[in-house]
């Protein structure tokens, strides 16, 4: 029992009842904080695991996509200027949504498609098949990138409430062990 945490009370029965109620309240608060910290830690670990998996997959997918670009160039010739010239609206867009984990809101990105493919007829006379494969591979790469961005933006979101709730939990456990 440390000196500075001593609470000055008048030794009466009512004071004891009040103190018991306060102790109960503190214990409940401590348990809730423990639950919150556990949930946040679990979520954080899940996100980290997913980030690692996605990054490994990303390496493979980007490699495949770059190679399919080489294949398409072999058959269709150099179409890069045509593609760059005809850019107008984005076809794949991102929506930001909020996810709630134990009281902490985390941003989540979701991709959706809008509009038709304006490059449908590119490569009509040469290399259309390879171009279609190329488009699919890069679409997969973009989807993975969106997922990775979503995961990486939610992990700092967790970094702040996690230590705070674990610190508060430790303070509370000190307090309740004294009382």
């Amino acid at each position, binding site marked *: 029992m440390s000196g500075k945490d001593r609470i000055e009370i008048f030794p009466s029965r009512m004071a004891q009842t009040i103190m018991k109620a306060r102790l109960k309240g503190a214990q409940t608060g401590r348990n809730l904080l423990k639950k919150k910290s556990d949930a946040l830690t679990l979520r954080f670990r899940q996100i980290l695991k997913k980030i690692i998996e996605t990054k490994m997959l990303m390496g493979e997918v980007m490699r495949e996509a770059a190679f399919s670009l*080489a294949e398409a160039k072999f058959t269709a010739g150099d179409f890069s200027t045509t593609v760059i010239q005809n850019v107008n609206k984005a076809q794949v867009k991102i929506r930001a949504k909020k996810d709630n984990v134990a009281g902490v809101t985390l941003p989540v990105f979701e991709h959706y498609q809008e509009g038709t493919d304006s490059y449908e007829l590119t490569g009509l006379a040469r290399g259309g098949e390879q171009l279609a494969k190329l488009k699919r591979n890069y679409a997969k790469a973009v989807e993975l990138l969106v997922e990775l961005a979503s995961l990486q933006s939610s992990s700092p979101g967790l970094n702040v409430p996690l230590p705070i709730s674990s610190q508060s939990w430790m303070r509370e456990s000190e307090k309740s062990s004294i009382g």
Partner: protein
Amino acid sequence: MLEGAELYFNVDHGYLEGLVRGCKAGLLTERDYVNLVQCETLEDLKIHLQTTDYGNFLANQTNPLTVSKIDTEMRKKLCSEFEYFRNHSLEPLSTFFTYMTCSYMIDNVILLMNGALQKKSVKEILVKCHPLGRFTEMEAVNIAETPSDLFNAVLIETPLAPFFQDCMSENILDELNIELLRNKLYKSYLEAFYKFCKNHGDVTAEIMCPILEFEADRRAFIITLNSFGTELSKEDRETLFPTCGKLHPEGLRLLAQAEDFEQMKRVAEHYGVYKPLFEAVGDGSGGKTLEDVFYEHEVQMNVLAFNRQFHYGVFYAYTKLKEQEMRNIVWIAECISQRHRTKINNYIPIL
């Protein structure tokens, strides 16, 4: 025109034919390709290419060496050879060369039109144009506001004017999809080239006409294949087929109605030349695609063109073979630089 070309050909064109045959002897052989495929880095590739006809074409390049630098330098070399041939040619060989450059001009014009419509600076687009398709009115493209203005002011001076007139009346130019325009121009170009070769007669017609027929039919097949699942309607599809090939008219009509690969294959089975080509196509991944099979057949026809003498087809064949060689080298270089060597042997062998 002149029968007995062997009597008159060498007077005007003998020097150039000799030159082009010498250049053809410098094409990479199977052994060169085997050496290239075994390279580990792009530097090795450069060293191997120095022993071939390419010589020190990469000598002035700074590090690091990239695939696009190799591509640009090879194209520069081909262009200088082509310009040399063209500058030393006499009629009717010079008209033949003009016809050859028209296909690159069509691509350049489409690029310039697109850029002009989007108000992009002409200088940046000029850099990206194909050098073989250069024509004098190129810089004047940005004075036009709409495609029909562009046509009336600029394009009417180029050799492409009759192709534009063939396709359509000018006011439709504004709404037409750029890819459809490109393919329609190419169709009328191919038909005009075919007529020119046929009228010239003699050995040139014997060599060039089958090559151009194959090109026309190949385009018909590929356009059909690539239009499955797109918004291109069957009538539109039919207007893009060049009519100077073997498939005209029944085959083209059947192709326009085809809805999947099997129906296309059945159309091809009526023609003795195309039946074995379609049978050589593997299914899905791993086998050859239809385009690969067509490329191989084109290369075979171009190599055979060198077996006859006294005709203009050698120049066409040499340019096409050189372009295929460039594509092969770029393919091998990409496989090496991306360290993805499983498909490195998928180049089209030439000699």
